[in-house]
């Protein structure tokens, strides 16, 4: 299993300073990154993927600094789904998913499996650019599934932001299955109901600093969330447990019991 460790890295991006301190997302668990816009969620994920060089400290993958690791070696152990998937050539959905294995041998069955897990089997031969935003995000997740090896690291930056609830629920199940099989999953989201379904642990970042890290059942609550996110939170009873929901002030009348 791969171990990902933020060892007090400091990354300055203009006026913004990312300095989260010591954080180590656990292997075999899903850690959900929450926090206000511009707080450093994407910086954390890009840094974890080796895209940013810390001025001090380090981000270690199995003990080695991730940003100096050769790209091919890193790709074998870690997959990233960026916030906005971009494909600058007229590729089919299958072509894009196969890029997850671009430097390593891949059987067509493996690509087909990755497509099926993201519910894209029917869309496999469509041009990527003919798809909706949510479908394109599912293609990016499927590419990460194709790339990912058991026990590796999966980094997801708002990977379901535009995905419809039924497909998002299916992706949540697949990602939890990866964690159960030993993956280290770090996923940023601003959707508390997605966070409730996905998270074993919660890492909250604001202003570039860690404001909380702990078990989801303690942090995704009506008591803890308002001070972390600055929004009122309601709790609902879901099919498998409690769900945290941002309370924007719903105006629906209470349903008769």
């Amino acid at each position, binding site marked *: 299993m791969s171990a990902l460790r933020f060892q007090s890295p400091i990354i300055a991006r203009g006026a913004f300073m990312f300095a989260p301190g010591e954080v180590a997302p656990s292997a075999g668990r899903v850690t959900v990154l929450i926090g206000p816009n511009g707080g450093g969620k994407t910086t954390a994920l*890009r840094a974890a*993927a*080796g*895209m940013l060089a810390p001025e001090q400290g380090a981000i270690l993958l199995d003990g080695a600094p991730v940003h100096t690791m*050769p*790209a*091919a*070696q*890193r*790709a*074998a152990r*870690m*997959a*990233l789904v*960026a916030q*906005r*998937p*971009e*494909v*600058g*050539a*007229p*590729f089919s959905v299958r*072509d894009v998913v196969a*890029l*997850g294995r*671009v*430097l*390593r041998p891949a059987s067509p069955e493996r690509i087909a499996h990755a497509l099926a897990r993201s519910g894209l089997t029917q869309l496999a031969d469509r041009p990527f*650019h003919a798809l909706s935003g949510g479908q394109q995000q599912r293609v*990016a997740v499927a*590419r990460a599934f194709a*790339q990912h090896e058991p026990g590796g690291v999966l*980094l997801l930056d708002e990977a379901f932001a535009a995905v419809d609830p039924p497909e998002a629920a299916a992706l949540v199940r697949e990602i939890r299955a990866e964690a159960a099989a030993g993956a280290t999953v770090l996923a940023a989201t601003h959707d508390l109901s997605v966070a409730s379904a996905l998270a074993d642990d919660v890492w909250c970042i604001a202003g570039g600093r860690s404001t909380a890290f702990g078990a989801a059942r303690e942090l995704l609550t009506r008591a803890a969330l308002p001070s972390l996110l600055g929004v009122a939170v309601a709790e609902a009873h879901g099919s498998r447990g409690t769900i945290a929901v941002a309370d924007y002030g719903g105006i629906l009348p209470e349903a008769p019991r």
Partner: protein
Amino acid sequence: MMQRRPMIGLALMAVASCIAVAARLLVVRTLDGSLVVGWPGPTLGQFRVDAVLVACSAGAALGASGAILQTLLRNPLASPFVLGVTSGAGAGVAFASLAASIAGMAAPTGAALGAPALAGALLALGCVLLLSRRHGALDPITLILGGVIVGAIASAGSTVAEALLPPERRGLLTGWLFGRIPEVPDMGSLAACAAAALGLTGLGAAWGNRLDGAALSDDEARSIGIALGPMRTAMFIGCGVATAATVALCGPIAFVGLLAPHCARALVGARNRILVPAAAVAGAGLLTAADALRQWIDIGGGRLPLGAVTAVFGGVAFLVLLRRTAAGWMA
């Protein structure tokens, strides 16, 4: 099934290019205006063979570098000339003419313009690559803008140099800017261009999968294992040198480098492993066909300049392309 279709497409493209070559070799318009089909014998035929070799080398180099650049710049409307080499070569030619005039030498023509064109093209390429470095790596958007800026400065330099020439020597640059397929090429330039075309096509095919990966956003491309910085540097230099070699041999030839990759993509798909060789074949075929067509169109005294043929057909095709891809690729 997925593998067979691109191979059939490549075969079709090769056949079409062979037809263009045969047409250029066997059908010409004589001085009295009649079309003659046949082979004139080894001595006269050599001119046609040389012209075909030039057209195929230059077309292949332009096609391959167009395909690679469209992928690397993530832009269906990119062509080899975004690298600024054409304007740089033009400035080289203009300043060479000015230097010859000041030194009291005869105005340079034909193959004598190859060396200054190449020098100007490589100088402009160097400037564009230096300008487009950001955070230690080459940035596609900055590269496009850098190419525009260097091109504008080089064109301004050409205009100044042209204005300083004595009146009887002016107009040379305009003629050079049309592009031409020399029937008596400088063999060194031809060999350099052919080698550049073959080398670039081979490199593009060998690195085809990595090129595919580079079409993703920077972060995603790196995350799937592409060493984006070194690959971009190698590919931009390769495309720039190959384009400079064609400009030294033929002058600037419009649209072939833009259109050949699209013709190829329609037949073999977008995967670079096969797209780059297919675009090279398409470029060779298109340029040979344009040169053949130029021989057949009767405009009275002379023949159409090659650049006029590629510009007229290429311009129309470009408009169609713009309508089709503006909504398509980048979404």
